């Protein structure tokens, strides 16, 4: 936008030829950017494209090993149909959905309440807590899964998918809280003073003012919690071992890879089906998510 205003200034000030070369330069930069971006997009989309191609192939076509693997000659939806009617895959899908719904709800309740308290009310040590929460990421899941293996064992939740609903919030809550603190802090203080004078309680204030006003932030945080919960791999791999308890990420790997037999067509179809919910959600709500992610960081 400012490029055009600069262009206008140049138009008025400079000679005709000068303007012309500037204009051409800018056009070159624009087309160069498009071409470079195009190359990047092609490279970045190679794996998803290949997933799609393989998922449309029959096992016979894959094992024939002739011709270009990048093309599909006899497209078939057999793989998808097999998975949709395959009871184990249905179980994984259902388990993933249940765990994700519980995780997202728990994470959002915890982080919204905490963010409200930390950004608006405050108590002794709340400032330290607000910064400290984010530092929990210094202790990543790949460090915690071994002691948690013992703790989950004490709770009797080994090979129980609800242990995931218990553990996933630890991955989502710190970042969700951080996003929500950012959004809540941007709400003017006058609003809650007005609410207090009108006789609203704190919870009413949170429910009637903060949550509606910070809705974009809540959407962003919800998407984050969803992403974490849907895609997590380490905890289910470590704690679940029977197929009735598994979620999608581990179920696909342990079920469709039997020893040395790789049913690649089915695996790729399963990957596509499992990636569908995140892709749909991002397709519609990407803007909220990007805004939520970058808002906190650009503010500093």
């Amino acid at each position, binding site marked *: *936008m*400012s490029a055009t205003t*600069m262009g206008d200034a140049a138009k008025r000030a400079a000679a005709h030829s000068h303007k012309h070369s500037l204009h051409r330069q800018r056009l070159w930069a*624009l087309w*160069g*950017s498009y071409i*470079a971006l195009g190359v*990047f*997009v092609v490279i*970045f*989309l190679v*794996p*998803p494209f*290949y997933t799609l191609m393989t998922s449309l192939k029959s096992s016979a076509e894959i094992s024939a090993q002739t011709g*270009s*693997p990048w093309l599909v000659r006899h497209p078939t939806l057999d793989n998808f149909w097999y998975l949709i009617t395959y009871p184990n895959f249905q179980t994984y899908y259902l388990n993933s959905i249940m765990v994700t719904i519980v995780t997202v709800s728990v994470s959002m309740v915890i982080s919204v*309440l905490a963010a409200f*308290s930390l950004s608006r*009310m405050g*108590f*002794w040590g709340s400032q330290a*807590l607000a910064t400290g929460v984010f*530092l*929990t*990421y*210094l202790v*990543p899941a*790949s*460090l*915690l*899964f*071994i*002691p948690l*293996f013992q*703790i989950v064992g004490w709770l009797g939740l080994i090979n129980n998918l609800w242990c995931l609903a*218990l*553990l996933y919030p*630890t991955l989502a809550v*710190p970042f969700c809280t951080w996003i929500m603190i950012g959004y809540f802090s941007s709400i003017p203080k006058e609003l809650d003073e007005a609410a*207090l004078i009108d006789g*609203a*309680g*704190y*919870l009413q204030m949170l429910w009637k003012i903060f949550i509606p006003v910070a809705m974009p932030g809540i959407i962003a945080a919800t998407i984050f919690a969803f992403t974490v919960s849907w895609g997590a*791999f*380490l905890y289910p791999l470590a704690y679940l071992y029977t197929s009735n308890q598994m979620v999608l*990420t581990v179920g*696909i*790997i342990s079920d469709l890879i039997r020893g040395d037999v790789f049913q*690649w067509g089915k695996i*790729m179809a399963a*990957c596509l089906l499992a*990636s569908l919910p995140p*892709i749909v959600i*991002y397709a519609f709500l990407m*803007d909220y998510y990007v805004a939520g*992610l*970058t808002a906190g*960081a650009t503010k*500093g």
Partner: protein
Amino acid sequence: MADGTSVPVGVIGAPRRVARKTSSLKRFTQQRSTIAFMLALPLILLVACFVIYPALYAIYLSMLNKKMTAFVGLGNFAFLLKRHTFQLVIFQSCLFAVTAVVMKAFLGFVLAHLMHNIPGKNQKIWRGLLLVPWVIPLALSTLTWWWMFDPSYSAFNWVLNQFGFANVPWLGVGWIARFCTITVNVWYGTPFFMIMYLAALKSVPEQLYEAASIDGANAVQKLFFVTLPMMRNIIAITVLFSLIVTFADFDIVRILTAGGPQDMTHVFATYAFQVGIQSGDIPLGAADSLFMFPILAFAAFFVLRGVTRRTKEIAT
């Protein structure tokens, strides 16, 4: 939670009885902070039970013997450090994290600039396309990469054969396998850098560039003396966040190579999984994964110190 609604009564009541004003105000703030604490309590409990306690418990675990019957002090750490495999793990973890983060940061920067060049309404589509790698769950997209790296009839080897090159054993030879794991990580993580940098680029005030143009700065000078200094903090925070996530990465290595060939691609997380969960030596696994913390804390300390110093400089 009924306390929450009763607080304002105290506020309204305060001016009526002047004598009790101070005590009622005090009670108000006291009540307020009690409610605040109650609201933050779930967070505190969650972090205490499932982050801080397990972390401390990991330290305790790491000092036990394999059967967890005797206390061996720092024996596990000494044992690990002497093992050749673990030295490889340390080397590979650092190589993996540093190379991947540097490449992601660079590519993300280039992509953000390219995106910044094109008009706003087209940006959305391009951004959506470029974010696809980041949207697909990593464990699932790594499966596709694995299939593409397949030695017998792989997508990449077919292309190489078309151009007259021999097959490459992608995941079968140490250094090539290392390169592959890094490639997948860069593919997955670059979009995140791109959107963070794009947001940062948009927040740089246009007047700065105009002023630089008037002073006769060329494009390179603008990049080094306007763009980069303005983006320093966001670059630092993004790099730190990505460094933590990359360093702790488990999915890619586990699925692609499971640590092989000859343990050359193991990182801390996958090695801890193999030793702790698969071989059942929980204390040794805990000791292995604990090595991550000081390295991450060290990186975080320097990055965050730099950020706060620069923020103060801007403020004064």
